[in-house]
């Protein structure tokens, strides 16, 4: 029997091995994580990664897996490799049996009548779902401070943001409250939280993972992906959730490549890795730049060829993103009107017409950032402005895609820092939306082009001792390359550090207690 404190720190791959070997039961693992959540997540100074904890159902699934294993035979042999390994799900993804809020008051208490495709696949693999994780309302933000249910705290420093919008999933994994989590990435919402919490996050190729059941922010940019502590774990999870889904028209028909095998390749010898000129240097924190250079050096030593590429149109990517994303969001969020589900607010006085009920509901139910983006998007799509805004942004999108196409003729994989800075303080950028938006400058191009991106821990910044993320980008449908290069770089870095980066994180339980005692 392993000590719980050790157990929760194991990777998902290692947990899977121990479960398969009968060294530990899924109920023990699941309970250990539930205990950890109870210890560090709640309270005034808790991490607040979870909006809902699904203990009963998670333990029931764990017990079912244990019973199947105990019985042995064909059913036990047929168990998925991750069967019994618990997981947390971003609360933007709908689940039967648990509330789904999207971090918004407008969906408070709403229960989905159906499961997202990825959730169906988690259930089919018999992975206990620990609960739903916090996020910026409707995934709109880079700090999780725009959640209607309070911000999530960064396990490295509870006064700092865990990134966003998927701060809950990243923080849950970083704080050892879950070995795995699902996120969604529209402009960096998986990768940037991964960077600032010292975890791994992957935005798969657009269409690689079904979006059915992910509450849409920007349909042409959204993608569900894995969040984990190791590159191999993300590959394992990606393999569970990926593949064609007939309920998502934009889902790729191609069979999924063997991503787990790619993560186990163990070599970058002869691979061409391209530094994107426009995505480092000016505007990037010195400590971020230093760790980025460390990674380049390690890859070079490992036999990769480091080349420099230029993507001149990336400078327009942020602007284009902030037209396309709000345009689609303004339409996607129109359905939240108080008529069929969720919050309904009646006007305080005056006639009780449907328009006024819709207006009162949306005024009360949406937070400021959501309203800001709905207004932006409505404006950008308006007659007379469409060509100048939405139309131009689509052209930029094409140019960004061409930049990627050109870059991938000289490089197999591209590399950059994931975010320009380490985690900023809670509240620091809340009143400055533009500064907040700039956080996604390095992650947005991948969403505009539909290419996959992976963020992994690159070390700690010299000036603040906080995690720095390294981003890898590959051509569409070549997600396997990310896992191959990511796993090699991870092992080189961990060899240098003498263990996982998260081992250097402050002891969270004590941190929470100490802060609360203050």
């Amino acid at each position, binding site marked *: 029997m392993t000590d719980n404190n050790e157990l929760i720190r194991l990777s998902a791959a290692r947990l899977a091995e121990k479960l398969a070997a009968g060294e530990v039961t899924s109920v023990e693992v699941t309970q250990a994580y539930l205990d950890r959540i109870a210890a560090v997540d709640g309270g005034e100074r808790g991490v607040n990664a979870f909006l809902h904890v699904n203990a009963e159902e998670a333990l029931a699934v764990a017990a079912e897996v244990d019973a199947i294993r105990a019985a042995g035979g064909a059913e036990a042999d047929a168990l998925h490799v991750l069967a019994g390994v618990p997981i947390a799900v971003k609360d933007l993804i709908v689940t039967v049996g648990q509330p789904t809020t999207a971090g918004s008051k407008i*969906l408070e208490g709403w229960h989905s009548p159906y499961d997202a495709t990825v959730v169906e696949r988690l259930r089919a693999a018999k992975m206990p779902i620990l609960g739903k994780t916090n996020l910026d309302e409707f995934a709109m933000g880079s700090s999780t401070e725009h959640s209607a249910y309070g911000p999530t705290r960064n396990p490295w420093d509870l006064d700092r943001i865990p990134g966003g919008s998927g701060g809950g999933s990243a923080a849950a994994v970083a704080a050892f409250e879950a070995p795995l989590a699902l996120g969604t990435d529209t402009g960096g919402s998986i990768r940037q939280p991964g960077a600032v919490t010292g975890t791994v996050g992957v935005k798969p190729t657009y269409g690689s993972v079904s979006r059915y059941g992910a509450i849409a922010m920007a*349909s042409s940019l959204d993608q569900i992906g894995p969040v984990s502590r190791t590159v191999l774990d993300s590959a394992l999870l990606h393999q569970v959730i990926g593949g064609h889904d007939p309920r998502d028209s934009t889902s790729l028909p191609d069979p999924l490549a063997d991503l787990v095998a790619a993560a186990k390749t163990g070599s970058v010898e002869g691979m061409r890795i391209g530094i994107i000129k426009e995505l480092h240097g000016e505007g990037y924190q010195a400590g971020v730049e230093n760790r980025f250079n460390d990674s380049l050096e390690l890859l070079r030593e490992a036999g990769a060829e480091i080349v420099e590429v230029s993507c001149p149109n990336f400078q327009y990517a942020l602007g284009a993103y902030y037209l396309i994303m709000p345009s689609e969001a303004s339409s996607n969020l129109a359905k939240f009107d108080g008529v069929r589900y969720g919050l309904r607010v009646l006007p305080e006085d005056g006639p009780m017409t449907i328009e006024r009920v819709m207006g009162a509901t949306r005024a009360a139910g949406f937070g400021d950032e959501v309203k800001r983006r709905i207004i932006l998007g409505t404006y950008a799509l308006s007659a007379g402005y469409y060509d100048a805004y939405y139309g131009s942004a689509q052209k930029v999108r094409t140019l960004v895609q061409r930049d990627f196409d050109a870059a991938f003729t000289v490089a197999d994989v591209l590399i950059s820092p994931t975010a320009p800075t380490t985690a900023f303080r809670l509240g620091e950028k809340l009143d400055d939306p533009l500064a907040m938006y700039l956080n996604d400058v390095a992650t947005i191009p991948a969403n505009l082009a539909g290419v996959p991106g992976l963020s992994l821990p690159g070390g700690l910044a010299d000036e603040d001792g906080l995690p720095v993320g390294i981003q890898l980008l590959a051509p569409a449908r070549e997600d396997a390359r990310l896992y191959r290069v990511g796993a090699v770089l991870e092992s080189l870095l961990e060899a240098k550090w003498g263990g996982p980066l998260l081992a250097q994180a402050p002891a969270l339980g004590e941190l929470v207690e100490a802060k609360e005692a203050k």
Partner: protein
Amino acid sequence: MNTDAILSFEEAMEKYDPVLGFEVHVELNTKTKMFSSAPNVFGDEPNTNVNEVDLGMPGVLPVVNKAAIESSIKIGLALNCKIAESCRFARKNYFYPDTPKNFQTSQYDEPIAYDGYLDIELSDGTVFRVEIERAHMEEDAGKLTHMGGATGRIQGADFSLVDYNRAGVPLVEIVTKPIEGAGSRAPELAKAYVAAVREIVKNLGVSDARMERGNVRCDANVSLRPHGRERFGIRSETKNVNSLRAVEHAVRYEIQRHAAVLDSGEPVVQETRHWHEDTRTTTSGRAKSDADDYRYFPEPDLVPVVPSREWVEELRATLPEPPAARRKRLQADWGYSDLEFRDVVNAGVMDEIEETIAAGASASVARKWWMGEIVGRAKNADVDPGQLGVRPATIVELARMVEEGKINNKMASEVLDGVLAGEGTPAEIVDKRGLAVVSDDGPLLEAIDAALAAQPDVADKIRGGKVQAIGAIVGGVMKATRGQADAGRVRELILEKLGVTV
């Protein structure tokens, strides 16, 4: 309640030239909805044929129904349209509770079919070509029922009920180019155009095409301009005119109303109008301007529809004969006069006559039975002639019995009543009712003697050469034999008896 002034139609026509335009919505009869797997069924309990997609639940995504695309292509081909090589859906954004997502997924600038035409035959045989601008795919909205008001409209209602069964039903919207030059035939053309579209989609089997159920709905655009002016006048759009008769009446009314407005020197207001069947008038709906901003943009949740040329040609090859061409062929085959054929078409028994002929009847016999016997009965029963349940084989058998002299026409009609009453086959009914023609001359001669004796003056007239007076004697004999005599034989015997040769 309606206070709009109108001019007489004749006066309106003297002064103005009408320009028409139609948007006809056709509900497709696919098994499932446009973007979801929920059943597409009319008339079920409200809100039962819905799933999370139709209700616009958080997280759902649409998937295009391939059968709906196939039907849309068929409609496009039947309207002589070009079929797009690639086309996209767009979102039409507006807040209204019958639209669960608060946007309608519809084709906008990339319709699946475009640039077609339809030749419309008017009652006098003139053919009028209506140009089709486009036929595009979209989804229907839910159905709102406004409760508590006097009119059933939203004004004055206390609350509204919404049924999402119809939300997401596949629609094809067929839009004409402006129709000029119809003149005083405009109301007739309007009706004939909608009838032709309805007939085409019914013939293709892609829609149930029942206007009373809203399977085919027409928005009629009307504007007037003074004779000789090129520029169009300001139009009104009368929404949801849902019967062929109403289309004709609504266009006629709007022409009269526009003429009165123009005569008064006022500008016509660009607006939607509501049609009222009871008063046969329209009332103002909502002001509509070209500036209505639906913030259309390409639907990012759907990939473009790219019908391969092979598929389009396959579908073209399966198209049934166009209704107009079929009519032309049938009239020629049957040898009916224009008038006779038009009566057949108007009575709605063309298909039935075709089947009856196929079963072995001659064209003239088939027409005589359907037009002479069955249409009248259907009218009395208030059903379509085809719904009376007369089988082609029955008519063939009745016609054969008459031809063989077993029964006469009057008896045959009686036998038909028996068949319709479910008494059995014609032969059984003839037996049961004892309806065989009396061909033994003995009883007939007795009856003739009695008839001649009863009307000696008529007998004299016949002897004197007025043979046409014979009807009175024949009638007497038929009466005496309760109609069972062969009238032709009776006539022969009377003439023989009176020694008259003709």
